[in-house]
């Protein structure tokens, strides 16, 4: 067998119905073209026939893949989970979610590029991988345990293994249940914890002690040393909102002074963007940005913020969705759309204790969080199936409140800022927030714009005044910016390369170094295959096209579906964190046409064309698509 670098060369293929395990060569899925992570998962999903089944059907494959860079020192140690996502609303769509931690690298060291889990076990099981060997094991003793207890129990039986697990929320098929590694690294979006639960798969434990082979180690070291010397992987903006809670100064200060034990982060990454906190009586764990979901709103207490995170992580609930739930609940109740009782809540501190310091005592927050989160994890809360499905039952006003926060396929937070990002939302199959930092207002857009000839975005550089101005709602060439970020996102989720450690703001020194030059060099040094910038970029475009083909064939995606909700053409949410003005229908339609033309797709129906797919080396896929 030819010597392989970067990739391990095998995918672990598990059928829980038949209780069969085998290893399939990664080369069956064209890894040189689709790289790994989301690209590899999408290619496997395609090979499985992109099944038109529900998310909780046994034929929905749960795919967890790493990439050729995974295992190497640097911000590369991530895995991507793909499958039909129960969280998508209104239709369940093929989507993705990434996680870091220790598990991804250990999977590579064990000798696998990915795991595909099909079927359904008739009783709770976990998958145990010890380098070359793998076994399906009884998990009756783990079922019902929280995510921390489950991992600690597995560590007793398999001391050097790292695990991804689900909590009670995954077991009850909550549509936004997470898959968690350690205390703070989760595949949160998509609801893939529920997919594991539907298969009766409680955990995957992996011990890997083998090599990650690098074709040109000296070249790799040289590239790494330059990033190190440039200080990019040591300090950066994401550290400030990852290590410390973004809950206002009193909480931030108190948490740092009293409870911050040390920084934390993913395996092999020098960036270490998380903070590990230990609050007696509540718990210990790592936080990164949205883990502060409960503390984001109002000026609450440190205890409330921390219990919100620890309890949700233990129960296995998506913190990002919980932030959406809080906004939905508070906005909807204020608008008279529904009552707290409609949401299964006896009180909400932000309403019922609004006048008290810190929105009430720690006990108040404890009681609220316990009622909300246990209700979700037990499947009893009206919110357990997600806000969209809850809003349907709560009536049309509730639906409008929902759509204000959920423009397309997920909670927007501050990730819908300009026309280009709206186009990205409209053409993805989930919220694209893991790549939307490229659109945000940290100066990223002008950097990309100037060095890649993409004059879009919400910020412009005024050469006369030498300052950036906040011009918004720019339609001109916004399709170029969206396509650039989408291709870049496809690569970041496939190499993989962490979003936080690769943001242009901390990373972009053109012309000698931009992210594409670095990515192509590092991938070439690791794999020994010559990826120049254009070849790598073509891979990004190819992965995006494959996902589009899956949308078209499996989900009947058409041009008319490529939109954010119609409300956003009439009004916006005036919070300074979203679109500055309503979208203009005519300009939007023209923009979409330009986008399809840029992509080489049919502007009439938004389908990829055979000729474009063939030009991207996807003839095998083009042959099955009627355009």
């Amino acid at each position: 067998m030819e010597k392989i670098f970067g990739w391990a060369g095998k995918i672990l293929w598990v059928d829980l119905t038949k209780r069969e395990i085998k290893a399939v060569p990664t080369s069956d899925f064209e890894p040189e073209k689709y790289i790994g992570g989301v690209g590899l998962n999408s290619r496997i999903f395609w090979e499985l026939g992109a099944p038109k089944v529900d998310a909780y059907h046994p034929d929905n494959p749960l795919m967890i893949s790493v990439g050729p860079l995974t295992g190497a020192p640097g911000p590369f140690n991530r895995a991507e989970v793909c499958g039909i996502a129960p969280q998508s609303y209104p239709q369940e769509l093929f989507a993705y979610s990434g996680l870091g931690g220790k598990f991804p690298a250990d999977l590579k060291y064990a000798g696998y590029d990915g795991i595909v889990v099909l079927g359904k076990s008739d009783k709770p099981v976990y998958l145990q991988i010890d380098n070359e060997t793998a076994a399906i094991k009884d998990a009756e003793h783990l079922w019902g345990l929280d995510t921390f207890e489950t991992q600690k129990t597995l560590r007793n039986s398999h001391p050097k293994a790292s695990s991804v697990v689900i909590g009670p929320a995954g077991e009850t098929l909550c549509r936004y249940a997470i898959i968690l590694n350690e205390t703070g690294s989760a595949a949160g979006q998509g609801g893939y914890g529920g997919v594991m639960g539907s298969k009766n798969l409680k955990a995957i434990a992996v011990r890997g002690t083998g090599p990650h082979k690098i074709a040109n180690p000296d070249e790799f070291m040289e590239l790494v040393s330059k990033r190190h010397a440039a200080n990019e992987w040591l300090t950066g903006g994401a550290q400030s909102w990852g290590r410390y809670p973004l809950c206002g100064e009193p909480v931030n200060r108190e948490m740092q002074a009293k409870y911050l034990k040390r920084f934390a982060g993913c395996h092999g990454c020098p960036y270490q963007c998380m903070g590990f906190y230990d609050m007696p009586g509540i718990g210990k764990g790592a936080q990164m940005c949205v883990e502060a979901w409960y503390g984001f709103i109002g000026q609450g207490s440190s205890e409330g913020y921390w219990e919100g995170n620890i309890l949700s992580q233990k129960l296995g609930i998506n913190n990002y969705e919980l932030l959406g739930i809080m906004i939905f609940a508070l906005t909807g109740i204020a608008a008279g759309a529904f009552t707290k009782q409609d949401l299964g809540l006896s009180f909400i501190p932000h309403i019922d204790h609004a006048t008290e310091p810190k929105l009430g005592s720690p006990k108040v927050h404890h009681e609220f969080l316990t009622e909300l989160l246990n209700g979700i994890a037990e499947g009893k809360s009206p919110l357990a199936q997600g806000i969209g499905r809850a809003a349907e039952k709560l009536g049309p006003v509730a639906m409008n409140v929902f759509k204000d926060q959920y423009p397309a396929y997920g909670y927007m937070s501050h990730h819908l800022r300009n026309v280009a990002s709206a186009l990205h939302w409209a053409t993805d199959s989930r919220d694209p927030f893991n790549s939307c930092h490229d659109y945000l207002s940290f100066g990223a857009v002008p950097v990309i714009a100037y060095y890649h000839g993409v004059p879009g975005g919400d910020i412009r550089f005024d050469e006369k005044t030498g300052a950036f101005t906040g011009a918004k709602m720019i339609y001109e060439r916004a399709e170029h910016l969206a396509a650039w970020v989408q291709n870049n996102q496809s690569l970041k989720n496939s190499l993989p390369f962490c979003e936080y450690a690769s943001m242009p703001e901390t990373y972009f020194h053109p012309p000698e170094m931009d992210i594409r030059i670095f990515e192509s060099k590092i991938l070439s040094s690791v794999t020994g295959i010559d990826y120049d910038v254009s070849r790598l970029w073509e891979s990004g475009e190819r992965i995006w096209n494959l996902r589009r083909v899956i949308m078209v064939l499996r989900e009947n995606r058409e041009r008319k579906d490529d939109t954010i909700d119609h409300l956003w053409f009439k009004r916006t949410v005036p919070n300074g964190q979203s679109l500055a003005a309503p979208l203009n229908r005519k300009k939007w339609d023209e923009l979409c046409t330009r986008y399809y033309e840029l992509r080489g797709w049919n502007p009439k129906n938004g389908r990829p064309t055979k000729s474009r797919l063939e030009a991207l080396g996807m003839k095998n896929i083009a042959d099955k698509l009627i355009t």
Partner: protein
Amino acid sequence: MAISKKKSVTNRREFLAGAGTALSIGAIAGLTGCEYLADTSIVTIPANGRIKHNPSVCTGCGVCSLMCSLYHEKVVHISLSRSELVRDPFEAVYSINVCRQCLSPSCYQSCPKKDSALCIDQATGVKYINSDQCDGCGECILGCPLEPARVKLNPATKLAFKCDLCRGRGKGPICIEYCAQNALALAPGNGEV
């Protein structure tokens, strides 16, 4: 259309300062230190020096052991790293098993070919293995008083290997250089096991 890098950075900083959000304050921090440094400094190994680990700042990322194997073995392979990271991510407690460069080294005393296979650097006191002379008998591993033994056997080459403080590397031990948390340092040996 091209604007100079320096100008661009300055303007971005000004822009961000104006934005004044909690998030952008962090982004400003990221703007500093973007220039490439030409670090040619030579690290001096102290007499009887050893790697010292500070568990109060270590985050357990393991960059130390990855860089170690990459430098010495040209492969990322935690089993071939000279230092072994022991992690408890639920308590955020981390320790490192690495050679302590004992003043009375049992590994050296146990080596049947001492001074040709297992040697002591006369200038620094570093105990190192001369691979050309090692027969892989494993006596040094048995001789190490620490658990687990800080000398290990490479299963592929059947040769012993151990931390030699990256002897001959001008910038000193690579694990120290790449530890982003400054959790590793060179400490003078004090004879403790």
